[in-house]
């Protein structure tokens, strides 16, 4: 007696909620379409059980990743000055992030003098002749071999957490981006010989509570 009664109730509830489900479904479709990411590489990749982040980064580097940073970069002097002057306004104007609790990330380019080269740390960097946001240190550009931060992933508009199965797949995108930077972008640099020369670069950095600016480059050239 109980079973059919329950089934009826469930069926009724289901019917009552059908319009809501239909609405939710149609909303999702509209959103994806509007964002222009229908059948994006990310979603296709995410539908596979074994997501190959390395292949994803390799496939998207030349066509999407580098072009988006080159297109949207703002001169590093302008961004640093704006963050110094009015943090909230600068974040709104130049910042990008994946969620409201996350720190902002910025896409920058520049042409600056390399003041010094740090190869002592495995996470080596060029120190530029330009003060950071705190005013106590210099803006730094990563040269590896260890590349830190997820700034490059977090500025890319076509990569969203919701398109991936879980946080590990999402994290692996950033890891592979950093490996790509290590193996391709900075691998040809003559590091120690670069001090005193000019550096032209495009990259991204994540806001840091100390006011430090550590840029991950996607394009880099030491001028002779």
């Amino acid at each position, binding site marked *: 007696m*109980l079973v059919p009664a329950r089934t009826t109730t*469930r069926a009724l*509830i*289901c019917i*009552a*909620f059908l319009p*809501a489900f239909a*609405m*939710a479904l149609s*909303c999702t479709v509209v959103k994806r379409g509007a964002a222009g990411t229908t059948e994006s590489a990310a979603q296709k990749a995410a539908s596979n059980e074994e997501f190959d982040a390395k292949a994803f980064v390799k496939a998207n580097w030349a066509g999407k990743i580098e072009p988006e940073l080159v297109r949207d970069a703002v001169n590093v002097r302008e961004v640093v000055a704006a963050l110094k002057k009015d943090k909230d306004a600068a974040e709104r104007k130049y910042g990008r992030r*994946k*969620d409201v*609790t*996350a*720190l902002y990330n910025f896409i920058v380019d520049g042409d600056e003098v390399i003041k010094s080269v740090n190869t002592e*740390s*495995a996470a080596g960097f060029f120190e530029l002749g330009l003060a950071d946001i705190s005013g106590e240190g210099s803006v730094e550009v990563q040269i590896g*071999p*260890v590349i*830190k931060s*997820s700034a490059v992933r977090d500025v890319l508009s076509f990569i*969203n*957490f*919701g398109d991936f*199965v*879980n*946080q*590990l797949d*999402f*994290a692996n995108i950033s*890891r592979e981006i950093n490996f790509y930077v290590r193996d391709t972008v900075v691998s040809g640099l003559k590091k120690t010989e670069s001090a005193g020369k000019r550096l032209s670069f495009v990259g991204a950095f994540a806001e840091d*509570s100390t006011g430090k600016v550590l840029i991950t480059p996607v394009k880099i050239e030491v001028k002779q």
Partner: protein
Amino acid sequence: MFRRAQIGVLSLALLCCAMFVGAQKLMVIITPSHDNPFFNTEAVTADATAKALGYKTLVLSHDDDANKQDQQFDTAIASKAVAIILDNAGADATIGAVKKAKAAGIPCFLIDREINETGIAVSQIVSNNYQGAQLGGQRFVDLMAEKGNFVELVGKESDTNAGIRSKGYHDVIDQYPALKMVERQSANWSQPEAFQKMETIIQAHPDIKGVICGNDTMAMGAMAALKANGKGKVIVVGFDGSNDVRDSILSGDIKATVLQTCAYNADLAVKQADKYIKTKSTGKDEKQLTDCVLIDGKNAKKLNDFALGK
């Protein structure tokens, strides 16, 4: 039978209230054991927000038992809950329960841990454990000056977050060749177990420079063992952002931990549930990631009950 009848009457009464009086709809809040202050904060915060928004609440703990969680979903369905707020008992084991609730017209809002399926919960507000572990791992590397012997204490192997945190640590640390892991053991998230294991490890490796831990209770156990053996200078890093570790950081013992914004997530989930009940939309994507925050000597004093003050 009698009990069922009672539940039936109760449910009917609840339904009447909801339908005709229009007040006091029920929100069910299910989390792991409240013995852990992290989950307790989650439950207390969700409960307070729900009550403030005019809901009745039923607060339950599944104790990381998927069967128990399943029964609690049945209770929520029988009680005609309008929403379930859930920190779940397993990424795969929970899928069936959430599907069952959805079929019964009860929307689920997940916090902290994610499940391996999308399209059945309304929201999954996930703590980015991996990002947090990378933060902690990076600070550990900096504190170690990129070199020396270290020990890793891992959480309970069956818990996804134990693996995710360990992977996050290693993805950072393993890139530095001069950092050498001399021992890796599970202390099952437990303070006494971490204390015992650390005592033994110290005998075998008197030269360790650092200990990285999958959570704060293990960090507390490790720190106590190190101090008891005259090794209070060893670098210890934890994960969670508990008040105990905050106090240890402030007294100069443990060096850093990583805060998951659990109070924020719980509050957000209930607010999204409320919005969804009223408008049939949260206005947000299902999967939402909330970042973790590094806690060290600079900001530790602003930390209380898993929330960072201004």
